[in-house]
């Protein structure tokens, strides 16, 4: 696949690099943003106001998202990532700002080409409220 860039339908998104803690660039496709836009509120507001904060100030970043045998998670930067954070706000069905949902974290999923392809709320772990449910079993390794 060609490297994502604006010319072939991707926008840049700043994030923290889980391998060195410095800034790096992720990508988000116009195609996905188009679907988000078609869904209206609150999807649009979550994407606009929550996603970026999770990528820049995550509480944890996991590597080895899939448990398929064809994902080789031992090859350096290859492997899919999951950013996990605690948003300061949430949005209701009408796109109105409200307090974050209780006992939930926000996850953003990144593929091996550094494309952010999905993001959503999930219940937090009963063991650790800043981690997603099942975090010990569903990810190969915690990087941050």
């Amino acid at each position: 696949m060609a490297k994502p860039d604006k010319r072939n339908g991707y926008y840049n998104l700043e994030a923290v690099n889980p391998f060195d803690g410095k800034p790096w660039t992720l990508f988000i496709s116009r195609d996905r943003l188009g679907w988000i836009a078609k869904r209206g509120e609150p999807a649009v507001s979550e994407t606009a106001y929550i996603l970026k904060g999770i990528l820049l100030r995550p509480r944890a970043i996991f590597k080895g998202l899939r448990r398929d045998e064809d994902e080789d998670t031992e090859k350096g930067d290859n492997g899919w990532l999951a950013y996990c954070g605690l948003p300061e706000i949430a949005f209701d069905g009408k796109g109105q700002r409200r307090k974050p949902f209780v006992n939930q974290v926000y996850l953003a999923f990144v593929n091996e080409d550094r494309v952010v392809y999905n993001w959503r709320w999930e219940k937090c772990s009963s063991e650790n409220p800043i981690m997603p449910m099942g975090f010990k079993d569903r990810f190969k390794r915690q990087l941050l």
Partner: protein
Amino acid sequence: MIDFTENEKLKEILEALREEPTFPTAHYDRDGDCLEFLNSPEAYWGERVDNLVTVYYGQESSDMIGACIKGVRKLVGSLSQKLPTLSIVIKDGPFHVGVLFGLALSSGEKAPAEHVRLTYRKIIEAAANAQANLDDLLLQP
């Protein structure tokens, strides 16, 4: 503190792409190789069912309002070996999303646990009216 000024740039892009929302809606994401459907604009949280499927529940209603299935390319590829006409059906146009979840349920080597099977059934019912174009699935990754 949230820098809304910076976030407005992303909001501008989204506003430029905005269309009148219609539900149910479904979308195959080529970058994530995942297929999602939603029956409602309601904010939701996701709950994993198994390694393939995540269910979406409305934050206010707690109803099942959608789901996501990942590894679609591999799933369709392996099923196409048993069902050669599957790729033709996909190419023909919008694909009923529930069918894919049904195929996923039956794709495992062993029978799923009862609660997993029941959840899949609910997903399939919820996805009854959701269709997605899977043309990207037939493109090279």
